[in-house]
């Protein structure tokens, strides 16, 4: 195994072009486990830790440009206001030691359906900034996940950053594991309210071959909230609406039985989390509306 250590982003792109099988490594929290257990023996390993730019973030007008290697700890500490869903998801990643090393780029690169960041990114709305010697492009998050542990990257491309939409409303993230910390998701759910566009977005983890959005559920809820005038009135979402949204989220799943849980449990749990996160986010939205009105 050859170890490549590019000193700059340009060198990294050149190296990746020359060795398309090279596996990039930053925090190493995923890649090193695979190597240590001999599950994976890449011909080339490319250390991106010298590319400083990858560990930085920038808060823009519309979105946050989050370097691929920004550790989860930094997201929790610094971006809770802008990226509340991702901050909540970050908190559920493994242990403090792992959160100090691992970043969203790793989750995206591995593209495991169990990656904790995915549901939050899907719900918030995001674009993955990838680059090769051929040029740079942005892949919408909805088009990024292609199959079990497969993503939309070309062989010569590297993930540079992810542009996540800044929250314009409440966001929630919820994850089921069979212990109270340090656990891989049995399934996970992300929900974001977008009051500016009067839409909701969802993200489901570990309940289908890829991370997915529950589009039918989103469309149903968007219509129900619009028709009922909920965005304006801020009234409580009726239980029947919440239930149908939850059922549609469960129906969006295409889960499997595995050692971590059964398919039917996953489907059931996604429904429960969908209903609860809708309640929580909507309560926050109502609370925020009341505060705004009170101030005005």
């Amino acid at each position, binding site marked *: 195994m050859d170890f490549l250590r590019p000193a700059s982003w340009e060198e990294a792109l050149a190296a990746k072009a020359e060795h398309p099988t090279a596996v990039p490594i930053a925090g190493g929290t995923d890649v090193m486990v695979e190597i240590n257990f001999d599950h994976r023996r890449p011909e080339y390993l490319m250390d991106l830790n010298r590319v400083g730019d990858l560990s930085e973030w920038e808060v823009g007008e519309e979105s946050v440009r989050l370097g691929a290697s920004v550790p989860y700890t930094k997201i929790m500490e610094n971006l809770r206001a802008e990226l509340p869903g991702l901050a909540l998801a970050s908190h559920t990643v493994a242990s403090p030691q792992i959160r100090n090393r691992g970043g969203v780029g790793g989750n995206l690169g591995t593209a495991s359906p169990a990656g904790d960041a995915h549901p939050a990114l899907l719900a918030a709305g995001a674009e993955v900034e990838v680059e090769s010697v051929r040029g740079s492009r942005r892949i919408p998050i909805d088009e990024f996940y292609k199959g079990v542990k497969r993503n939309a990257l070309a062989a010569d491309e590297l993930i540079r950053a992810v542009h996540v939409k800044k929250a314009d409303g409440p966001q929630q993230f919820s994850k089921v594991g069979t*212990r*109270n910390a340090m656990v891989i998701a049995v399934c996970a759910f992300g929900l974001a309210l977008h009051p500016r566009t009067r839409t909701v977005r969802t993200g489901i983890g570990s309940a289908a071959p890829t991370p997915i959005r529950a589009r039918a559920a989103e469309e149903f809820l968007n219509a129900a909230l619009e028709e009922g005038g909920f965005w304006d009135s801020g009234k409580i979402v009726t239980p029947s609406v919440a239930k149908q949204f939850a059922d549609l989220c469960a129906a969006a799943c295409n889960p499997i039985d595995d*050692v971590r849980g*059964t*398919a*039917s449990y996953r489907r059931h749990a996604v429904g429960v989390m969908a209903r609860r996160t809708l309640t929580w986010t909507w309560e926050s939205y109502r609370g925020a509306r009341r505060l705004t009105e009170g101030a005005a």
Partner: protein
Amino acid sequence: MAANGAPTKITQGSRTKGGIGESTLRPDGTLKVTGEFAYSSDMWHEDMLWGQILRSTVAHAEIVSIDTSEALAMPGVHAVLTYDDLPTDVKNYGLEIQDTPVLAHGKVRHHGEPVAIVAADHPETARRAAAKIKVDYRELPVITDEASATAPDAILVHEGRDDHHAGHVPHPNIVHRQPIVRGDVASARERADVIVEGEYTFGMQDQAFLGPESGLAVPEEDGGVHLYIATQWLHSDLRQIAPVLGLPEDKVRMTLSGVGGAFGGREDLSMQIHACLLALRTGKPVKIVYNRFESFFGHVHRHPAKLHYEHGATRDGKLTHMKCRIVLDGGAYASASPAVVGNASSLSVGPYVIDDVDIEAIALYTNNPPCGAMRGFGAVQACFAYEAQMDKLAAELGMDPVEFRQLNAMEQGTIMPTGQPVDSPAPVAELLRRVKAMPMPPERQWESSEGADVRQLPGGLSNTTHGEGVVRGVGYAVGIKNVGFSEGFDDYSTAKVRMEVVGGEPVVTVHTAMAEVGQGGVTVHAQIARTELGVTQVTINPADTQVGSAGSTSASRQTYVTGGAVKNACELVREKVLEIGRRKFGSYHPAWATAELLLEGGKVVTDGGEVLAGLVDVLEGETVEVEEEWRHRPTEPFDLRTGQGNGHVQYSFAAHRAVVEVDTELGLVKVIELACAQDVGKALNPLSVLGQIQGGTTQGLGVAVMEEIVVDPKTAKVRNPSFTDYLIPTILDTPTIPVDVLELADEHAPYGLRGIGEAPTLSSTPAVLAAIRAATGLELNRTPVRPEHLTGTQLSEG
């Protein structure tokens, strides 16, 4: 030269007296917490090679051929050994039945069985070379449960058995069977106003010790070998290793190296013989360290079990009878299965008075992973089932579950189903009373002015509930565990104690072969020596085979048995010291001849407190040393047909109250509190006692809500051999564990002490299960409980 990282002497000083009853601190505690302690996996030797084991990828198969040529041809490889390379006619080992091949011969019987071993100059090279060994398997049908094991056409897991259980078992795929019959169940059943039955399942738990199997074998100039090893019983290892190597036992030197936990998982051999074989073959030191994946295949697990129970009771709440059948899955090799059967059957009634019983326990041979010793050893599975039965009976009778248990609780003088009288305190009702009397944790602790604190809720920071669906439940359980090796086993220990003057101070050196696996024996031995010999400085020598056997660090026995041996040796040393004193100074004071003399504060004193001489003066120019074996009261085997016999040394009791909160919609559980009351006889080190009780309680919690090795029933292959998927409790899963310690002396035991390490592991699990049942109203007949069981989603969708 000595191996680096080999254990060194631990000298413990204390400004206080530091005797028994004090919470002196562990000599290895700070080193372990700061990461400086040398575990067996940290050892290093100049010029050493690395060993690697090739394990079977299938559970049951004939080996058609093994081709090692490619592996041998790899640069850096020094040896590749298979069954054909074993040097003597002894090619098997085993704790009780020598049925386990050192390397597979013609057949593999479980997933992960060792087939070949490699030594190379780099661990990676060894691993690569092992992967290049070609093994051609012809797969056989797998035997995975009682039905497949005893089917008319079942393949025999072991052909031609000639072990001492082979003659009395009903089928060759049954390792051992122990019935216990006492009284007249048929007529007692007539008296029952209510009868409850239950079918219970206990999952396969792993010891999950944090220090994986590892050791270093160093060839010696005399043709022997020195093995530095993390184990639970050096002399038991030695007895099994030496014949395979073709060496007399005195040419296999063994030194205990740093043990990172054991819990029963190091009673069987793992890489001991493999490392020695490679060292002797290559003439170089060989180190073997399992990684976590291999560790799951490298040691036995707790027996999974199916238990069928029937209990009857009268309307006024008195138990009438009990019938049970306990089927333990022993996996491919016997390991400790026979003794686990003995425990499961003899303790199957629990700490209750039932005169009429009909009990049967068996262990199967299957192609599942081998199972053997684990903390609680057969008593754990039974306790899970009989405590569920007690709750069912109480509910049926409309009685309070604690009162119902108290009404039937055994006490000193109760006769066990084996006919053995319980001849020391058995405060079962009192332990239940104490645990029930503890203050309850406040309700809805998660509520705060800033909303829900998810850390206090099921799911924790995974943020699954802010209180929705959360229901509290409370459950109780109590258990009984035997202490020490039972059934007529000669369960002795040896201690060598020396007293001399070093640097102008009297110093005691204690040397035993006791495996310190975390239980705190090294602390307790020093405390005993201080108490008995009145010194401050005590040196604990590394455990090795240069001193007689200490027996196993298991069965809650080491403080009792090796502690007893140290106490005994100290008493003999004291006698010799006093003899010297009398010889030297007897003429100066009449008390030397007439008074009861003690050693205290470095001096010889009378029982009236008068100082006769300093130990330094008495010992000047002399060294007193004693090595002596010590035994507890003998036990008897259980009769093979009736199960009668005074089989156990001592009993140990603990009770738990579990308070849980269950997210009933998601099936997630948060254990809020696990209160424990336990009788320890005498707490030699109260802090260590607390640690043992809290640790045992947590291990019991683990198998209640998460810990299980999942074996595919179609292939008998392990599906989750990693800490990613075999979950053990983190600190966020561990509740507060208030402990109420009772000290009722057992007059037969040293200082009145009672072995304590296992009892809390028994009752913790059923208490948690009872609490979850209380919260959900579900029957829950298996452990661990998974979210699927609480939400009715256990079946696959298709």
